[in-house]
């Protein structure tokens, strides 16, 4: 499209190559292929013999290495660990198989390349290139053929055929698209809820026992899940991906956010363990600064200030779970999270 715009002078002239003989006396002219110089192997048969022996030796080493591979495979039990400096305590099978296979392959390659480099002709040869673009006559012939074909198809004249054909071809992939609907359910409100509900006790994930407020020391870190959830459940992973809870205790006087204090129990606060950035379990808790860092993208939240974001790519604070103590003296949830946990999404609002 821009061919008309080009001012030809901006292109360099092809003086260096095209003029050929006209500038042959130019000191910069292409002197042509230098005369071929022989290698030692080309003029000294003993050197050539040496090369031949080297190649044969490499191929022989390869054969021996393959024998070694099979032997290692047979000899070493799969769980045998050996100490090899400086690699460490490594699997005997892995090391021996890897090295023998590596040597067997490498020596074939080295042999072939050495053969090519020292014994095959190393005379450089020039091969002509031909322009890729077709000659004008050829192009004219093709265009004429195409025009004839197009004319014979009558596609241009029979508009009805053309229109309906395009319609049919455009519509038929829709069937495939519709089939993809079965890949998964509609999102509905799934991302808005977790298993937490009023009265559900907080289960310590270490002991699988309900947490009691007196168990949770200032400066400690505990992870909890809702009662009724079990690791054996079929959908445990789906559930824990939203339910996972991080429990810390902060001196009530140190809690800066009013709502956080209100939703805590005597300084015990429960935040979602799932990062609001892209959903990594965030739990790198610094007990003195009350900062919690995400190991995936370094979003940092201040747990003493409503878990607001103080660094990194997360867009909003970690959701807090409102907790209290039930009749048995155990910690319990006072409802679900007030907002969706985990990464933000379009419908989140």
């Amino acid at each position, binding site marked *: 499209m821009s061919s008309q715009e080009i001012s030809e002078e901006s292109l360099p002239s092809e003086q260096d190559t095209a003029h050929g003989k006209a500038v042959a006396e130019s000191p910069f002219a292409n002197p042509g292929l230098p005369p071929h*110089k*022989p*290698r*030692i*192997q*080309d*003029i*000294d048969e003993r050197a050539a013999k040496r090369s031949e022996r080297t190649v044969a030796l490499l191929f022989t080493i390869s054969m021996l290495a393959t024998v070694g591979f099979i032997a290692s495979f047979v000899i070493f039990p799969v769980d045998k*660990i050996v100490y090899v400096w*400086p*690699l*460490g*305590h*490594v*699997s005997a099978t*892995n*090391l021996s198989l*890897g090295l023998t296979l590596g040597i067997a392959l490498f020596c074939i390659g080295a042999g072939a*390349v050495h053969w090519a*480099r*020292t014994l095959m002709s*190393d005379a450089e040869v020039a091969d002509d290139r031909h322009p890729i673009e077709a000659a004008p006559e050829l192009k004219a012939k093709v265009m004429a053929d195409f025009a004839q074909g197009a004319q014979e198809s009558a596609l241009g004249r029979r508009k009805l055929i053309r229109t309906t054909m395009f319609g049919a071809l455009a519509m038929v992939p829709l069937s495939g698209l519709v089939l993809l609907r079965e890949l998964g359910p509609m999102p509905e409100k799934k991302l808005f809820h977790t298993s937490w509900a009023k009265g559900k006790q907080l289960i*310590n*994930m*270490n*002991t699988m026992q309900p*947490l009691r407020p*007196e*168990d*949770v*020391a200032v*400066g*400690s*870190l*505990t*992870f909890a899940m809702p009662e009724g959830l079990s690791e054996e459940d079929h959908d445990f992973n789906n559930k824990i991906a939203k339910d996972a809870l991080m429990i*810390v205790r902060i001196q009530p006087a140190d809690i800066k956010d009013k709502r956080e204090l209100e939703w805590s129990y005597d300084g015990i606060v429960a935040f979602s363990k799932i990062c609001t950035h892209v959903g990594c*379990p*965030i*739990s*790198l*808790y*610094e*007990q*003195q*600064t009350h*900062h919690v*860092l995400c*190991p995936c993208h370094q979003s*940092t939240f201040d747990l003493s200030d409503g878990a607001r974001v103080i*660094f990194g790519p997360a867009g909003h604070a970690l959701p807090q779970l409102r907790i209290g103590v039930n009749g048995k003296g155990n910690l319990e949830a006072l409802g679900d999270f007030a907002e969706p946990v985990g990464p933000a999404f379009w419908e989140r609002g």
Partner: protein
Amino acid sequence: MKKLSARRRHPLAAVVVLLLALAATGGLYAAFAPASTAQADETAQSLAIEEGKKLYTVGCASCHGTGGQGTSDGPSLVGVGSAAVDFQVGTGRMPAQQPGAQVPRKKNIYTQAQIDQLAAYIASLGAGPITPTEKQYSVEGADVAKGGELFRNNCAQCHNFTGEGGALTKGKYAPSLDGVSEKHIYEAMQTGPQNMPAFPDTTMPEKEKKDIIAYIKAVNGEETPTPGGFALGGLGPVSEGLFGWIFGLGSLIAVAVWVAAHTAKAKKS
């Protein structure tokens, strides 16, 4: 000399000079870097020797106050318990050399007997976690697999899959667990040193601490097998990628240079 000057305009001369310069810089760094650490250790050591036996007054009181009540330079030690003292002093973190993002582990300058005396003194100031006995932290009969699950839930987020350590905010870090004794790991979980949160017995019972220690020792011990070969630091894709680029692709390119190079001619022109 003549040979040298004749070659200094050689096309490869620049490369050689660059290599020499790089080697020299590296050598200088290697020569100077450890020296300063050694010096620091010495100062600390000579200090301790000078001050003699009144360990606390000498080693700790300047920051933590004469009665352990704490000052602006160091927190109160009332109620931290003997386990905290044993950990902090036993791993060489205390006495600290200088303020910073985090007090690093270094060579312990006290004997165990001295640490015990210190711990007894601090414990007398207020009740706190007590130094564990060997029965508590020994990994005999521990469940390694359960320890692994607990480790991945409670510890790996800061200390990495196999305890190689990792970064925290603003220059703080979770230290590597390489070569840390069972007792010190136990005490760290019990007391929550520096910014590490505590995992008290009320939420993580003794048995589970043992399981965790057993797992750490199983995957990060001296004898831990790395079946696949050299572990590249156990840091995951970053070191693997670097290795793949520099060593993997590097050696393949070196091979390619050999394959493509012209064979030596009979007579050099």
